[in-house]
């Protein structure tokens, strides 16, 4: 499961330095790529790559230009790699959480933002995913999540196809 990430916000685009941008790309994109490259030769049919996307990769986020760029990239990487590896019987999926209370975020902003939308959307997306396990799906989770929720979706995506 690709999950490690670097995130620091910059309110002003001019404050986003080349070094900062580089660090975000290297950790969030190269990190996912490197792990996939290292793991795939050893993965058997039925194995799973699970990427951590983000709502910011779908909607964008004004103070997280670099981070949301990597997350959008991860979503495309997920769909593309899923198509590429399907012949080997390896599934590739992503979960795209909304804000979650973790130490990643607390390096950045002090306050968490809430988005409250109907979670039925999530439930429907998950159901579809279970019936189409071979396809990569991006689940956008629109609620303020406590961490158990994304984890819960992850086992749905990681477990054996039924």
């Amino acid at each position, binding site marked *: 499961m*690709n999950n490690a990430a670097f995130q620091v916000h910059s309110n002003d685009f001019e404050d986003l330095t080349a070094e900062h941008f580089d660090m975000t790309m*290297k950790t969030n994109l190269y990190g996912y790529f490197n*792990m996939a490259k290292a793991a795939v030769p050893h993965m058997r049919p039925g194995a799973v790559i699970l990427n951590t996307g983000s709502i910011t990769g779908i909607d964008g986020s004004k103070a997280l230009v670099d981070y949301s760029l990597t997350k959008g990239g991860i979503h495309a990487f997920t769909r593309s790699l899923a198509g590429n590896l399907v012949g080997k019987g390896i599934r590739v999926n992503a979960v795209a959480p909304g804000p979650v*209370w973790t130490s990643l975020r*607390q390096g950045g902003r002090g*306050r968490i933002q809430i988005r409250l939308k109907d979670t039925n959307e999530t439930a429907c997306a998950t159901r579809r995913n279970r019936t189409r396990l071979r396809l990569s799906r991006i689940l956008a989770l629109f609620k303020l999540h406590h961490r158990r929720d994304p984890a819960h979706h992850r086992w749905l995506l*990681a477990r054996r196809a039924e």
Partner: protein
Amino acid sequence: MAEASTSKAGTTVSKQRRIQKMVARKDAASRKSQDRPMQTGARRYPVPPFPKQHYPKPGHERVLDPQPMYDAPFYRGSQKLQDKVAIITGGDSGIGRAVAVLFAREGADVVVLHLAEKADAAVTKAAVEGEGRQCLVVAGDVAKRAFCEKAVARTLDAFG
């Protein structure tokens, strides 16, 4: 005749106002609770606003307030990942830790990769072992290809 009908209308209007007032009072009383996120879990979850805090990278979970919840005490595993092996980058804390614990509860052994958050990784390892599964911890930077190769090799040595 006209007079009687006017007074009837007056009664209706005052009835309507009484209903309106009653609803307005109820609305005012319940407005506060409507602004709160709903609580539909088996236990109460913390509600923002949380205290402002800013910590140096790489991000240590043990200093966060409130402490993130990852133990999911009401969730029972059912061997969905029985005897699988999961490598989780950033598995020391946050979403990674919650996933590590719940994957273990579903029967998987876990390899936690982390940058430098030793103490957090130790907590995750103990939690995975508490679920009756094995946990290997490897420290390093996933931005480096050589580290990723090494981490996979160590996984194969331990669980392959």
